[in-house]
């Protein structure tokens, strides 16, 4: 039996623009088990990065958590911690890797200085021990001459190397959870393959869970066990990766997968979802947030926001098409897709 590491329940995040509040993450619930590789996939503006920032209490001032809680190890409520208490969590229990490693590293300090900062803050080591630890860590993330890297500055390293340094920094305190926010989006495919491989291997060594945040379904398919699909601040579908790719239910997930899968087949027109992602102002309207772009929209979708319907044991979908338990409606749904 797997035990829960992170439990997000009914999380809502609001943004204040001109004294008006807009809801950008809406009642999001998800659970990450120990050693699990969990993915959140969604387009820009879907709220996937905001979710990760709220886990670490790093939301910018205009945003705040308006509802819900985030439990770490079933005991610590991260949304209720003071700033000081949060410092002990960040880097120690939960670490994060960002998309652009150049902006995440300080250009004025050497790599050794920046990694040792994390260690100094969380653990008690002598200088010598610390240096050895950092060298070992750099060796683990695949640097052939770690001693040389110690004295380098970020601008002397390539994008892939900087991301390795970020991974070394994130994992040096052996955190329980590693949040990777688009870790390979800025990198080339061959470097992306290196980095994903490395993250997989290292987190297995350290028994670390991963929360992978990405827009790339391919990255999810390669690295994750479970996946949540987000759209306009709501979690629309959640399932094991195998299940979601084989049997997507929510019209948005279906559309997303279709537009990826039809790539490469020149004989067919690319499947595309019409319209655009809603603006924050449109988010306060009632009803399903995908209704305006959905090809299966019904009257109820425009009036009432659908709850999470259970498709099967490990598959939930937030769509009115599945209100009778999924199975039967699902057939109807598959049929409408084929007849399109």
């Amino acid at each position, binding site marked *: 039996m797997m035990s829960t590491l992170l439990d997000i329940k009914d999380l809502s995040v609001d943004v204040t623009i001109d004294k008006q509040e807009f809801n950008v993450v809406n009642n999001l619930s998800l659970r990450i088990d120990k050693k699990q590789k969990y993915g959140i996939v969604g387009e820009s503006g879907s709220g996937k990065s905001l979710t990760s920032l709220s886990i670490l209490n790093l939301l910018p001032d205009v945003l705040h958590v308006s509802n819900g809680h985030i439990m770490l190890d079933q005991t610590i409520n991260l949304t209720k911690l003071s700033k000081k208490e949060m410092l002990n969590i960040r880097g120690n229990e939960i670490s994060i890797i960002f998309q652009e490693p150049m902006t995440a590293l300080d250009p004025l300090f050497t790599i050794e200085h920046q990694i040792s900062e994390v260690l100094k803050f969380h653990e008690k080591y002598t200088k010598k021990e610390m240096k050895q630890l950092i060298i070992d860590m750099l060796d683990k993330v695949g640097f052939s001459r770690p001693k040389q890297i110690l004295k380098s500055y970020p601008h002397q390293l390539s994008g892939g190397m900087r991301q390795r340094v970020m991974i070394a920094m994130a994992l040096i305190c052996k955190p329980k959870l590693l949040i990777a926010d688009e870790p390979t989006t800025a990198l080339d*495919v061959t470097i992306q393959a290196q980095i994903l491989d490395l993250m997989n291997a290292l987190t297995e060594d350290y028994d670390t869970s991963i929360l992978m945040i990405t827009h790339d379904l391919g990255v999810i398919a390669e690295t994750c066990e479970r996946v949540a699909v987000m759209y306009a601040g709501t979690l629309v579908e959640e399932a094991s990766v195998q299940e979601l790719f084989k049997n997507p239910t929510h019209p948005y997930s279906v559309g*997303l997968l279709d537009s*990826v899968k039809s790539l490469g087949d020149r004989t067919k027109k*690319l499947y*595309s979802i019409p319209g*655009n992602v809603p603006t924050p102002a449109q988010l306060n309207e009632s009803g399903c947030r995908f209704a305006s772009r959905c090809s299966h929209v019904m009257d109820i979708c425009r009036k009432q926001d659908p709850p999470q319907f259970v498709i099967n044991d490990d598959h939930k979908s937030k769509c009115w098409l599945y209100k009778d338990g999924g199975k039967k409606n699902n057939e109807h749904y598959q049929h409408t897709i084929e007849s399109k």
Partner: protein
Amino acid sequence: MSTTNILLKVNNLKKYFPQKSGVLKRPKNFVRAVDGISFEINEEETFSLVGESGCGKSTTGRSILRLHEPTSGEILYNGKNILNYSTRDFRKLRKDLQMIFQDPYSSLNPRMTVKKLLMEPLLTHNICTKKEAEERIIAIADKVGLAKEQINRHPHEFSGGQRQRIGIARALVLNPKVVILDEAVSALDVSIQAQILNLLIELQEELKLTYLFISHDLNVVRHVSDRVGVMYLGQMMEMAKTEELYSDPLHPYTKSLLSAIPSSDPTEKKERIILQGDVPDPSNPPSGCPFRLRCPMAHERCKVEEPMYQEVKDNHWVACHLYNEIN
């Protein structure tokens, strides 16, 4: 194929950027961004250049429009070398060669309305009167999927996908023959990317356009192109028809590039070739084959001798010593 009319031919194109240093700013070294590449594009065809960042694919695209003046080489458009044109003559030709950029946020002037943005090229090239121009703008806006009332708005009022539509309209309003698309869909979300790709394919058929498609996204390239060239460190490594390149890649670099694409099928466990290290610095390229430092198949010969870029199969070119024995 019925039309094998070569529209654009690039011959041994080189673009070296000088690295200046010292008080006198003398060029000390050169970054060999594009180092002798050749290819040709047939009429109404889509030719793609793929490669990692820094491989020179964008520089190639820009050199064709002479946005960077090439160091040496030939660019033949309709059989004439456009590098010999005077600035004035070239400007006349420029309406045939248009470009669509990656970032729809920075390539549109925020102070101009869509109408002004689309009017500008028409008036610069003295193509028609203001009145006719307005009709043309409405027609082209309609073609790319912008509503008539939207053309009086400013770029910030549009989403990324719609802005890219404006960029496309701006390039097409002059009725060009060749369009260079530099990472035209890379900044867009998957669902929007699909819309724009469909639009580009439709427009190509309708307006009989020739595309030079520059991208790092191998899936997108596979979808749009007739032929693909793979670049590495300023050189062409392999060139073939799309299906052949994807089903039977010859060069070790192409093989590893294709194997690195994350598969969108979690049940499919494919053999991965993970390359070690990074792309070398183009100001200080390795001796012999540019790829040898990362190549899993590298041998002694690769170190000393640069491989010839040659046709090893029908319309399938590759620069690798492994395929030398065939000849």
